[in-house]
């Protein structure tokens, strides 16, 4: 039975999916399992992974965690012998969850605050791709109140409303030169909001194999009235008026996940998640300036993302009453097509490796730690829009820790 299910899943058409700006760090236990776990009622992070499983959590709990993320990207121009690295900047994806419901009742309430999308890359002001981008700091913080209901003893459904608060700061050099030879600079900074939802179904079969089907909707984040600052020689200031603003839209994609949880023994469980990330909505990055001049026209840069996908396999082993060990592997297909790779998201297909452990010193208290590693494949590209031509290679490191209080 188990074998049949697994093979059926693996022979399903390969969902081609990408990562892009997606940050897969939403719960220490699941992170330790490479991000798998939608079919496990592991802990309060199910608010994100599967609202349908929340009602199966035994205890009420609150938890908070952080995963300082180091995005180490390198670039080498085609034909060059110089490798340039992004500056070491730590992005702080975090997660906060609370789950509460009357004991032995059929429903639970949940709240999740997490960062499912983001990017922090700082190539420095004078790298060879500076006219395409010098730095990007993108943060999306989702707030998700959730209701989860047990339909039967073995089936749960849940749904949450998502409010997104997004921050974007994008900087690049402008190829006009001051009298001392240095380049101009553009800084676009804005905040925006968006709305969506997250719904999931959790089924625990008689054999205790569990299934999950989860859909997280797209969240179109609108940035209105962001500031557009241009640092240019005085003789060009008329072309780049001061106090300008811009509107932009950042579509964050929907994700559909199918999960399986397979208990291997009383203390060991295997989790497999396949996700389809509907990045096709990210067709272009457009900036609509409040004031246009012949030198400053609205821009519409094609991104033409296709859908991406990821496959993650994780294992959770309860080594003792107090100690849990976890490990995971995964693979993700990039949504970024050839010709559209940019320094803001130097994306490619990637391998995922993770490890984690949990320690429960008391009945109420739990510490979980994880280490998450992604090896993004090297990718030689010439960007169609900017002509930026070279090879990107990225490694991602994210150690993490969370504290949980249960009652």
């Amino acid at each position, binding site marked *: 039975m188990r074998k049949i299910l697994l093979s059926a899943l693996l022979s399903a058409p390969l969902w081609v999916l990408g990562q892009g700006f997606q940050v897969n760090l939403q719960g220490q236990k699941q992170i330790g399992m490479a991000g798998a776990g939608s079919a496990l009622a592991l802990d309060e992070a199910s608010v994100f992974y599967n609202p349908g499983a929340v009602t199966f959590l035994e205890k009420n709990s609150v938890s908070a965690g952080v995963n300082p993320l180091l995005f180490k990207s390198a670039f080498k121009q085609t034909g060059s012998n110089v490798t340039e690295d992004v500056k070491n900047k730590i992005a702080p994806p975090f997660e906060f969850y609370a789950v509460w419901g009357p004991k032995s009742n059929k429903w639970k309430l949940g709240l999740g605050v997490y960062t499912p999308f983001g990017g922090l890359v700082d190539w420095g002001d004078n790298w060879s791709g500076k006219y395409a981008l010098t730095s990007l700091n993108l943060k999306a913080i989702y707030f998700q109140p959730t209701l989860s209901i047990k339909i039967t003893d073995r089936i749960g459904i849940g749904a949450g409303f998502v409010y997104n608060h997004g921050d974007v700061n994008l900087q690049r050099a402008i190829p*006009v030169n001051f009298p001392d030879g240095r380049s101009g600079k553009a800084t676009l900074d804005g905040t925006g909001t968006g709305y969506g939802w997250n719904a999931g179904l959790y089924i625990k079969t008689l054999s205790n194999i569990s299934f999950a089907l989860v859909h997280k909707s797209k969240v179109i984040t609108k940035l209105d009235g962001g500031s557009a600052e241009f640092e240019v020689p005085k003789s060009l200031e008329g072309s780049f008026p001061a106090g300008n603003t811009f509107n932009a839209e950042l579509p964050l994609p929907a994700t559909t996940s199918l999960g399986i949880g397979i208990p291997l023994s009383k203390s060991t469980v295997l989790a497999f998640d396949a996700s389809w990330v509907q990045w096709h909505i990210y067709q272009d990055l457009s900036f609509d300036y409040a004031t246009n001049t012949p030198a400053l026209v609205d821009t519409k840069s094609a991104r033409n993302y296709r859908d991406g996908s990821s496959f993650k396999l994780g294992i959770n082993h309860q080594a003792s009453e107090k100690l849990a060990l976890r490990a995971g592997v995964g693979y993700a297909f990039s949504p970024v097509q050839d010709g559209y790779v940019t320094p803001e998201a130097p994306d490619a297909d990637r391998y995922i490796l993770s490890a984690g452990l949990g320690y429960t010193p008391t009945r109420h208290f739990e510490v979980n730690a994880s280490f998450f590693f992604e090896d993004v494949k*090297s990718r030689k590209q010439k960007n169609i829009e900017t002509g930026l031509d070279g090879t990107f290679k990225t490694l991602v490191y994210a150690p993490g820790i969370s504290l949980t209080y249960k009652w």
Partner: protein
Amino acid sequence: MKKYILNSFVAAIILFAAACKPEIETPAGTTAGQANFSKYIAIGNSLTSGYADGGLYLEGQKVAYPNLIAAKMATVGGGAFTSPFFSEEHSNGSGYISLTALVNGTPTLTPVIDKLAIRDAAKHLDKYNGEIQNLGIPGMRVDLAFDPTLTFSAANPYFERLLPDAQVGKTNYFQFIQGRNHTFFSLWLGNNDVLGYALNGAVTVSTDPTTTLTDKVTFSSLYANFLNALTAGGQKGIVGTIPDVTAVPYFNTVTVAALLNAAKAINPAASSIYIQTGTGAVRPATAEDLIRLPFQSEGIFGKPNGSGIPYGLHPLNPIENKWVLDKDEVIKVKDYVNSYNSSIKSLATSKGLAIADTYAYFNQVKTGINVQGVGINASFITGGAFSLDGIHLTPRGNAVIANVFIDAINAKYGSTIPTVDITQYRGVKFPN
């Protein structure tokens, strides 16, 4: 238990430190292939010398494309590369023009006259003694390189400054470049054999040999002499084709349409711009007639003559022939460029040399290209590639052309000279 956790973290940290930095392996900078770059010499004209903004000055000399190439050759066995730099005290060399104001798109160009390297009243330039490998001389032509009278070596101040007094007026460029024990060369020469004529509005001044058009067959045979001399010891090298002279801002900034718009702004009844063609005929100008850049600052357009007829706006007071490359002259100039280029390519091919097809490249620049995030086109001032004289290159333009040469050398000889990062080089400087 605690030890276990600790060990896990230590292991993780070690793993992290070891694998932390992403590596990108490429062959760039590893081999000279079949070439030997230990002594590179660059033969050419103003473009090779680093001339820009209407003058030769230190900043331009330092970023001349051969200097950029030589710096990159250093990783694959290239040796030192010497150039006849002006001193820091006289860094503005011959003087040049700078952009001092830009009001509603109208530039004010002002000569830079301090720190000049002018050594006497006859405007001779500071001498440079010592060995040089950047042999580019502004104004050099293929025909005048063989100047049998040997007078061009005295008449051209950029040539004169490189010669000991005893040799001034007693040598020509072809002799000058020989005997330098080079192992590799670049030859980008011939532009002035047609540009000198075109820049003068296709008017040949009989007393000025720099305004003639070099005969096609003569060009081919003299160019062959160059290649024979430069490859006499079996050396490898690269030649550059000649850009279409009409692809430069010098001929595409003051357009007939722009003049007509300016005229209409003052007199809405203005209907045509009148020009005098190379044949002496007077006719309304068309978009195919090209007007020289300096016409803009000459201040004669629209000025009434003694009979009150405005200049350029009436058949009786047309824009003079010297300002105009009329459409027949454009055809003639293009024909010469094409002929020179086919000679250059076939001669280089027969010698097994690399070819930097700058003719093709500048035609791409004319329509606009994006290189490493920088948009480059042939617009005056804003295009980024051409300096304020509308003909010569900015540092950015030099960097782009250096890569055209490097790519061609690497493709021909299997070498891996690293390319130049063009984003480190400026376009036109805008006033603050």
